[in-house]
C-alpha cells in the first residue's frame, strides 16, 4: 500500500498542465481513484500533475439552457449547490449517491468520468442527460457526447495527454421527472447497477424517456430500446415493466463474486422499473 516514487507538479494554467501531461504522467484531481491505484501499484505514473491550481475548472454556470460544470467540481458541490439541484436534480442525485462524505468532498466530476469505472454513478446520469463533455488537448479543444465518451471499462474517448475541462447538461425543463436508483455493491458502495431515468409526459402519454445504465456492462450506456418501448405509452405499471424488461438486451452483463451476470441483468430490470416509476411519479 505504498506508491512508487513519482514527481509532483502543480501547474497554474491549463496550457502548463497539458504540457506537463506528457508520457508517463497522470492528472490528479481528487485522488479518490488514482491514489488507491498508485498505492496498490496498479498505476505507476512517473509524474503526477495536480489540477487544483488550474483556473477555470471549478465553475458552475448556466448559459443558453445548459448547465456547465467544471471538471474539478467535487461530488459534494454538485450534490449541495442550489443551482445544480435546481437545474439538474438528476446529476445532483447521482453525486449524492457516491461513496461517503469524505470521498464526495474530494472526488470530482472530471476525475470520475475520466477514470470511467464501469460501476461509477455519474455515467448513468450523463447518458440519460445526453451530456456533452468538453475536452482540451495540446492541439485545442473538442466536445464529445456521453455516448461517445464512455467507451469501455476504464476506457474513454480521451486521448493521451487530454483533459476533461467541462461537462454540460441540459437545464431540466419544468415537468420532467427524474430519478437515480442505485443498487449498491455493499462492500465498495459502488453501483452493482445504477439506473438514471428522465421522463416527460404530454397529453397523458410519455413524450420523452431517457434511461442511462451503469454497473451492468463494461461501460455505461443509454438504454434506447427501453426508451422507445416507453415513449408513446401512458406509462402504466405494465408499460414500465415491459419497457424495463428490455434494459439488458444485447448487453454482456458483468459477473464477479458480488453478482452473477444473470442476477445483474435481473437487478438492472428491477432498478430500471423502479427508476422509471419514480420518475413518472414526479413528471407533470
Amino acid at each position, binding site marked *: 500500500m505504498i506508491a*512508487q*516514487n513519482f514527481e509532483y507538479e502543480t501547474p497554474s494554467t491549463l496550457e502548463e498542465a497539458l504540457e506537463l501531461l506528457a508520457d508517463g504522467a497522470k492528472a490528479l484531481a481528487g485522488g479518490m481513484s488514482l491514489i488507491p491505484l498508485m498505492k496498490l501499484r496498479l498505476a505507476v505514473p512517473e509524474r503526477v500533475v495536480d489540477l487544483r491550481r488550474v483556473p477555470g475548472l471549478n465553475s458552475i454556470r448556466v448559459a443558453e439552457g445548459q448547465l456547465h460544470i467544471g471538471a474539478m467540481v467535487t461530488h459534494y458541490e454538485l450534490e449541495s449547490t442550489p443551482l445544480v439541484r435546481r437545474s439538474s436534480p438528476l446529476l445532483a442525485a447521482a453525486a449524492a449517491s457516491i461513496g461517503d462524505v469524505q470521498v464526495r468532498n474530494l472526488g470530482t466530476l472530471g476525475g470520475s468520468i475520466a477514470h470511467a469505472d464501469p460501476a461509477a454513478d455519474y455515467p448513468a446520469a450523463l447518458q440519460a442527460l445526453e451530456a456533452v463533455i468538453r475536452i482540451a488537448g495540446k492541439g485545442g479543444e473538442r466536445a464529445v457526447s456521453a455516448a461517445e465518451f464512455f467507451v469501455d471499462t476504464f476506457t474513454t474517448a480521451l486521448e493521451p495527454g487530454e483533459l476533461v475541462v467541462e461537462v454540460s447538461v441540459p437545464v431540466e425543463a419544468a415537468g420532467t421527472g427524474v430519478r437515480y436508483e442505485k443498487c449498491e455493491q455493499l462492500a465498495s458502495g459502488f453501483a452493482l447497477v445504477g439506473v438514471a431515468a428522465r421522463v416527460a409526459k404530454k397529453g397523458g402519454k410519455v413524450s420523452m424517456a431517457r434511461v442511462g445504465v451503469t454497473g451492468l456492462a463494461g461501460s455505461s450506456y443509454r438504454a434506447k430500446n427501453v426508451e422507445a418501448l416507453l415513449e408513446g405509452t401512458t406509462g402504466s405499471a405494465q408499460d414500465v415493466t415491459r419497457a424495463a424488461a428490455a434494459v439488458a438486451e444485447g448487453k454482456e452483463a458483468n459477473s464477479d*463474486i458480488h453478482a452473477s451476470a444473470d442476477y445483474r441483468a*435481473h437487478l438492472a430490470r428491477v432498478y430500471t422499473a423502479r427508476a422509471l416509476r419514480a420518475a413518472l411519479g414526479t413528471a407533470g
Partner: protein
Amino acid sequence: MASTVTKTEVLFGKKMKRKEDPRLITGTATYVDDIQMPGMHHAVILRSPYAAARIKGIDARGALELPGVAAVFTGADVKDVGPVPCGASLPGLRVPHHHVLAQDRTYFVGHPVAVVVATDRYIARDAVDRIEVDWEPLEAVAEPEKALEAGAPAVHPQWPDNKAFDYHQEHGEVDKVFAEADVVVKQRITSQRLIPCAMETRGVVAEWKSGEKSLTIYTSTQIPHLMRSLVAGMLGIPENRLRAVAPEVGGGFGSKLNVYAEEALMGFVAMKTGKPVKWIESRRENMLATTHGRGHVDYYEIAAKKDGTIVGIKLKLIQDVGSYHQLLTPAIPTLSVLMMPGVYRCQNIRADIVGVFTNCVPTDAYRGAGRPEAMHGIERMVDILAAEMKMDPAELRLKNFIQPEEFPYATATGLTYDSGDYAKPLKKALGIAGYAALREEQRAARSAGRLMGIGLSTYGEICAIGPSPATPAGGWESATVRIEPSGKVTVHTGCSPHGQGEETTFAQIAADELGVDFDDIIVLHGDTAIVQYGIGTFGSRGTAIGGTAMYFAIQELKAKIKRFGAMMLDCDDVTFSGGRCVCDKTGKSVSIQEIAAASYRAMKLPPKTEPGLVATYFWEPPNFTFPFGAHVVVTEVDKETGDIEVKRYVAVDDCGKIINPLVVAGQIHGGVAQGLGQALYEEAVYDDSGQLMTGEFMDYCVPKSTMMPWIEDSNTETATPVNPLGVKGVGEAGTIGCSPAVVNSVVDALSPLGVRHIDMPMNREKIWKLVQGGAA
C-alpha cells in the same frame, strides 16, 4: 491533600464514560506506528503471490543496489530461528515446521518470503519489487472438503491426505437414543471463513540494545507476556532480556491472540542490523496474512422425542486449518464441541472433528472462537427440529432448557455450567419484541404475499478462559495494586485490554473497594517491564479473571490498611469503608491517603507489617463462566432483489453482574455488528487456485454504521458463583447470539417457499435465487 469525607457512592453498576476514550478519539493515543526512534529502519515483506509454489531461487541483488536499502533477509538467513509456535496440542496433531520466512516452498498467498530493511518505508517497498524469485507454481487446494478428496493436491507433501488432526468426543448412549428417537433431523451447516479486520493492522517495532544485550518488541498484540516467552525461545535469547510492549492496540478480535512470524522476524532484523526496525502491516497484508476465523463445515444430526425433548446430538466437524497451525488453531474447533449442546439438557453427544490443511492463511480465534460456530449449529438445528415438528421455536427451546435449579450443571461434554436461568432472557426478549403480536403481523404479511421472518437464538457461551488445566499456557490472571504515598492508585493488570474498556471497569471496582476517587485510579497494562507476568485479553476473560485478581490484591491491601489504621488510631477493632479506617469504639478515623503516607514514611510500623501498600495477586479461577442470552430478530425479504432488511433487533444478554452498562452495551453492539457481518455480508473467498478474492474493503464487506439496525439491548443479571464479583464476561456474546437469530429469521421468512436452511453469508443473490427456485 488528605480527604476527610467518607466516600459512599457505589460505582459498580453505574454507567460511566470510558477513561480510555478521550485519547482514542482525539488521536493522542500511541499505537505501534506512532513510535519513532532515532536511526530506525523500516521493513517491508515480500510475500508469495502463489498459494503453492516452489522457490527455486531468490536474487536480491537488485534490491540491495537501491540506495537506502540496509539489508535483505530470506529463508536461508532465518533457518535457525525457531518455528512459529502452535500452543495447542491434540493427540496425533500434525504440526508442519513453520519457519518465519518460507524456505523452499510457499503454502499460501501472502506467505512471507523475504524482508527488505531500508532507511524509509518507500525505499523498502520499492526494493521489494526488485527481488527476483524463481517460482515454480504448484497446484493448490483452497477448500477443506476438496482437500479431503482423494487425489487432491497435498498442501504439505508429507501428508497427502491433508489431514491435520482427528478428534473424537462422545458421551452417553448416542446410537441407542438415535435408534429410538421419534424424530431425527440432519443438516449440513457451514460457518464461513471470515477476516477479523481489526481497525489497526498488525505492526512491530523492535529495538536491540547491544550493550545491554536486550531486545524490546513493541507489537500490536493481545498477549504481550506470552508473546515474549515464545519469541524469546524462537530467537534464543533469555526471556528476561526481552521486553514486550503492547502499546495502544486498535482491536484484535482474536487475530492478535497469536505469535506471528513477523514478531520474531523483526527481533531478528533488529539484532542483525543493530538498528531499530519498524514493520507496519498494510491492509492488504492484513487480509492475506493475519489469521482468519471460522471455516467450518458441520454435519449435524439431532434426535428428539415426540414431545420435542432433544435426546441426542451428532456432529461431524470439518475445520479449515489453512496452511499451518498458528497459536491456537487446532483448539478452536474443540471449543465448538465443548459447547455443542448449547443451553439444552442433552446428555448424549458424539463429535468428530477433522482438521484439514488448505493452501490458505491459517484460521484461529476470531470473536467468539468456536462458540459462534457451535451456537450457530445448535440454534439452527433447534429451529429445523421445530419446523419439522411444527412446534413454535420458542416453545421448543423452553421445553429443553436446563432449569435454574439444575445448576451447577454437568454437561455431556465435560463442562460444569456455573449458573443460569435461560428462560429469563428469552421471555424478556419475546416480551420486548412483542412476540405474539409479531406472529400476528407475520400472518397478515404472508397473506399479503410479503416475506417476513421472526427468528430467535438462545445461546450459551463459555467465558473467563479459563482454569489453567484447560488451557495451553495457564488460565489464571494477575494484578498488582499499588497505593502510592499520595493515596493515588496504580493498578497493573496482567491482561491486555485493546478496546474493551477495562481501564474504566477496573477503576470502578477499585474505587468502590478502596473508597478512592475514580479519577485517582489508573490501570496500566501491556508492558512486561512494568507489569508482572500475565496471560492476556481474549475469551471474554479480562474482567472475570483479571478483575478478580485485582479484587483479591485489593483485599490483601485492605487487611494491611486496617493494620495501619488500627495502629494510627490506637484501636483494636477498626472498620475500613468509604476510604476511611474507623475505630469501632471511638468513632475516630483516618483516611486511606493518610494511611498511605504513613505506610511509606514508616516512622512506625504495625506488628509483622512491611512498609508500603503494594499487593500482587495471581488468581486461578476454579471454573469457566457461562453467560447466556436471547436475541430476537425480525426481517423482511425483498422478493424482487433478495435484499434482507433487519427490521427489529432485540438482544437480551446475561453476562452476570454488570459493572458498567455502557461498556456492556458497547460490547453487545460491536459483537452484533460482527455477527451481522457473518450472517449477511462477510466471507473470505479464495478461488480454486488459492487467490484471495476479497483482499480489500472494496470486496470484503464489513457492515458499515449505515447498515446497522437499531439494537434494542437490555440484560438480565444472573451472578456467577465462580468469582466474588459475580461477573461472567461479555466480549463475545453479541456475536455468538447474533448469526443464528438472523439466519433463523430469514429462514422463517422464506419458509412458506419450502426453505429450510440457508448458509451464510445470506447475500442478496443467494436469497433471490431461493425466492425464484424455492427450497434449499
